[in-house]
């Protein structure tokens, strides 16, 4: 028969003390948040120019009028994001894998992959965008894709460079003993990469990868430099019409709303990875 454990007086006292401490810290946190918040509100609304700023940045009527246009622009951001994210992840994975190939036969491939990551991580995105959306159509080649596609290619190339490095870090973080174990079983190099190294690498770098995707989400709008109207560009147009900056705030809020699910997924993946590692 197992008896129910009766906590000793000292254990009860410890639990009670911890409870009191918890209540105390919650109260302190609430009080300090309240004080800080009040101070901020007082400082901003008490500023000499607050009325003017409120009119030009927080006008409800302007916000309502601008919302459909800005939201339509955001739809473009979203589609571009999905397309570019998938493209950049694919490019990054392939380039990272090519960079790990050993042996003199693969020297050109390796050099090309290395040159690519160096070039496109160094080049400012805007310059790549200009070259692709303005330079490439200038060649007047038959079958040149639309500007939107060219812009997406530029984004994929730049972000592919970053993502390749993230993947490579993941691949190199897999311990050599894992490779030895896989090869000793008779797996070829390709099988080892596919079944042993890459699954572990991808899992390990999922949080920084999602971080890059969140950054990409904000950069896809730069294709508007070449004409297409994204959320920020739509806000700019609305602002130019009304001489009121509220549309920018609308766009900003929409961007944050769009980022929340992505950031939440990032946090969730990070947490899960941490739990798995801790269990090891």
């Amino acid at each position, binding site marked *: 028969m197992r008896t129910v454990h009766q906590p000793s007086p000292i254990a009860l006292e410890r639990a009670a003390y911890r409870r009191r401490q918890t209540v105390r810290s919650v109260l302190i946190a609430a009080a300090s948040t309240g004080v800080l918040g009040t101070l901020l509100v007082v400082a901003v609304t008490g500023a000499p120019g607050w009325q003017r700023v409120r009119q030009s940045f927080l006008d409800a009527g302007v916000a309502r009028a601008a919302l459909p246009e800005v939201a339509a622009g955001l739809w473009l951001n979203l589609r571009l994001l999905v397309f570019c994210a998938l493209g950049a992840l694919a490019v990054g994975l392939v380039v990272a894998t090519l960079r790990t190939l050993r042996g003199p036969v693969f020297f050109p491939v390796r050099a090309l992959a290395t040159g690519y990551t160096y070039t496109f991580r160094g080049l400012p995105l805007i310059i790549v965008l200009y070259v692709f959306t303005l330079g490439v159509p200038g060649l007047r080649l038959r079958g040149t894709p639309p500007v939107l596609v060219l812009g997406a290619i530029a984004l994929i190339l730049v972000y592919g460079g970053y993502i390749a490095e993230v993947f490579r870090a993941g691949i190199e973080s897999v311990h050599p003993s*894992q490779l*030895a174990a896989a*090869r000793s*079983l*008779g797996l070829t190099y390709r*099988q080892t990469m596919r079944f*042993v190294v890459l699954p*572990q690498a991808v899992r390990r770098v999922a949080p920084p990868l999602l971080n890059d995707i969140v950054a990409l989400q904000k950069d896809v709008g730069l294709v508007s430099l070449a004409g297409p109207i994204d959320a920020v560009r739509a806000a700019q147009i609305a602002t130019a019409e009304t001489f009121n900056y509220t549309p920018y705030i609308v766009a900003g809020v929409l961007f944050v709303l769009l980022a929340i699910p992505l950031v939440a997924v990032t946090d969730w993946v990070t947490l899960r990875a941490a739990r*798995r590692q801790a269990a090891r």
Partner: protein
Amino acid sequence: MTPPVLSCRGLRKVYGGQVVLDGLDLDVAEHEVVALIGASGSGKSTLLRCVNLLEELDDGTIHLDGDHITDPRVDPDRVRRRMGIVFQAYNLFPHLRVLDNITLAPVRVHGRSRAEAEAQARELLARVGLADKAEAYPDRLSGGQQQRVAIIRALVNSPRLLLLDEVTSALDPELVGEVLTMIRDLKAEGMTMVLATHEMGFAREVADRVCFLDGGRVLEQGPPEQVLGEPTQPRTRQFLHRIIAAGRL
């Protein structure tokens, strides 16, 4: 006359100016169990890794069943399929369940059906009392359980030769027994094995021959009673004295 399962001649391996193997010779006959003993750095692990072609030799030849496997024209992947190696740190794949760890090579390398490979894996797991761990991930297993899974992972490929690299060195003392029992059973089944070990008592019990490695060569070899009981070489005696002082014999 059939050739020995494993035949090493004049093996030499240098790591960054340090000679680890220095003209080492070793033959292993079928069904024979050879224990490699020697101080850390005497080349036990390097020898096993060279035999498995995980390390490239600087000189010497290795034959497996009479086939020259250190010929550069030989595909090392095909050679490795004919032997198994078990590592000190288990090296299970942490992202795969126990069952998938075991069936990876049978399915992907040896082209067997998944159902058949899984059935065999479950049977082998059951034989060592790990039937209920088939669906678990390696990090949920104790060290002794992980090492037994690693041995099964090597065994499902029906290797001609099993290399065991200090397979109990990373284990808590109370878990060593369960792994040694498994190796004992393998010997009873006639598996040809080369094992690097610090467990002198186990070497004495399970090995047909004990080889003392020193300075990258086999300095002394023979039946366990002789090498461990009445060593002729002073270096062997010194080594065994240190082991006794550490309470491992």
